[in-house]
């Protein structure tokens, strides 16, 4: 019992437990689940979900939201497509352009948040339209589908059943983990998210920390955009269409505190796996696709509920310990 309670208090339990149950249920119920084709395709989905989950987690740990995640992805994809197809830029420089564009998008968001006194939510909401709008104006709604073969090859390359893009995502996650766990920047971001005023008084450059955090969030959107573009085989405006909700679900499932001040990289990675398994289960169990948004909503609501239950337990436990010491 004591052990069970201790396990429940651990922040990753709320993602690992459903993950294991769902995984076993899928193995038992659907023989197709462990087929090479299904594993590859699920890993491809995890790749995107993981990176956008990390992007949202970075913004959340600052105590902000990034509603523009999908739009940054969309704009990045369009600009990469434009530079490759219309300007004849080679693949690698074009990808670099994409990453720079995405970082600038995040940088600009951070800059607006720190330099104006407008609520971060409104800035993010406005930029959601502005970034998407720029992409629409440039592409005129038409996808760039004459991309070099190298892009498509990048998507198709596999090591066994594991797509190469998945390794890119893992490398990205490790990078984010190192930033938050071992670098001063990560510490500053979390401190700023936990309490901006206290961070300021302890000598942290809060404004530049916010800008750096948002730039990192933008950069991650750029990486996701490159992989999604490769997956589509064309640069189009619909890259990033469902990223906003998904990115929140992944971060919340992973136990990132929504009030800011805490980033759980491992949680976000596991959250993306759980999210993809849920999607995969719905498809393998032949659930009506029109019900997916409703189920996603319920998953999100239950994740909050679990989070709250855990926080209450921790609170009660610590109160009990204080009483015992008396």
């Amino acid at each position: 019992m004591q052990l069970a309670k201790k396990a429940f208090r651990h922040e990753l339990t709320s993602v690992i437990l459903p993950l294991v149950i769902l995984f076993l249920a899928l193995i038992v119920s659907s023989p197709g689940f462990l087929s090479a084709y299904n594993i590859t395709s699920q890993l491809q989905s995890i790749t995107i979900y993981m990176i956008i989950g990390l992007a949202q987690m970075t913004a959340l740990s600052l105590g902000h939201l990034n509603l523009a995640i999908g739009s940054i992805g969309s704009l990045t994809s369009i600009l990469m497509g434009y530079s490759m197809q219309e300007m004849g830029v080679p693949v690698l420089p074009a990808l670099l352009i994409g990453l720079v564009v995405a970082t600038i998008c995040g940088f600009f968001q951070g800059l607006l948040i720190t330099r104006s006194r407008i609520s971060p939510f409104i800035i993010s909401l406005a930029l959601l339209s502005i970034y998407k709008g720029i992409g629409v104006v440039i592409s005129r709604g038409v996808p760039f589908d004459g991309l070099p073969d190298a892009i498509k090859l990048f998507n198709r390359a596999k090591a066994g059943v594991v797509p190469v893009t998945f390794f890119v995502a893992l490398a990205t996650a490790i990078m984010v983990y190192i930033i938050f766990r071992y670098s001063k920047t990560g510490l500053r971001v979390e401190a700023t998210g936990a309490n901006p005023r206290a961070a300021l008084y302890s000598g942290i450059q809060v404004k530049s920390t916010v800008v750096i955090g948002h730039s990192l969030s933008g950069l991650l959107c750029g990486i996701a955009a490159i992989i999604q573009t490769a997956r589509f085989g064309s640069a189009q405006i619909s890259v990033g269409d469902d990223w906003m909700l998904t990115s929140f679900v992944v971060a919340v499932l992973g136990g990132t505190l929504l009030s800011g001040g805490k980033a759980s990289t491992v949680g976000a990675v596991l959250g993306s796996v759980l999210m993809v398994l849920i999607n995969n289960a719905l498809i393998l169990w032949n659930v009506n696709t029109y019900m997916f948004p409703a189920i996603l909503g319920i998953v999100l609501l239950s994740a909050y509920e679990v989070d709250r239950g855990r926080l209450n337990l921790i609170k009660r436990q610590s109160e009990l310990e204080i009483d015992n010491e008396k």
Partner: protein
Amino acid sequence: MKNSNQRTMISQVKESGILSPLIIVAILLTVMLILKPNYLAATNVFVLVKVLTITAMVGFSQMIIMAIGGLNISVGAIGALSAIIAGGAMDRLGVPAFSALIIGILVGVACGVVNGLLIYRAGGVGPAFFLITLATASLFQGINLTITSGNPYYGIDSKFMAYGDTQLFGLPLSFFYMLLVGLLIWFMFSKLAIGRQFLAFGANPKAAELYGISKFRVVLYASIIAALVAAIAGMIAMIRIKTAQPNMGSDWMLLSFAAPLIGGTKLNGGKVNVAGCLLGAIALTIISNGLVHLAVDVFWNTLIYGTVILLSVMVDQFNLAGMLRRKR
């Protein structure tokens, strides 16, 4: 307010905080009238008013939640779900027009109850609003899609259209409903205890609670009233396009924030401006209608909307009205 009769009209306008949105609307109208001298012809005004009605209602709905310091991502999802269930009741079940209207509005109220209870359970302040309504928006949209499989309902009772499409003084009746709703909201915030409690809670939730204002009541009632207004907006939108479209409210989120923000309502809560919200909606309507009139490529719309929101909030930051006052 004892010496209000001594004040000039201009200072009253300044006091009420609608000077900035008024200037924005005036500039937009002037520009449109210069570019298109017959811009305010009766036919165009009719079109403007039809769009304005929905934008203003959606803005009102968001403004009520903003008053208590929250925000609502699910405005569009609530409007669409109410319209779909009312439309489906008429199309598939042959429910008479009036009952369908009641059903639609009750659906909206039910959505509001769900939102309110969940938001209260999640803490009732700050990020709870965003997180819960993000989830419920997905939930409501999913229910909507499950019912419709993405197909619209066309069999809307013609009596239903008559509720809002009949004309009064050459304008659609729904426009006057919108004005009535605005008036009622204004009355609630300025005269009724519950409206005062909303504002007090929005300004400072902790102080309001210490003062004996029930957080549960504020969050629940505000969510219900906001959802009710969103449901009415859904009904009016259904009357306008004469079908119940599953994807109806998908572009409402941005508009719902833009109208009150341009109108001087603050996202931090504690302050509302009904007339300002209406002016904000007018400004947005003129912009969207103007883009069509000036034959601007439809691809520019998203970009322009986003820029307008950002600029209007920035203008508010620089306090246009305050600058004018100081110069005098």
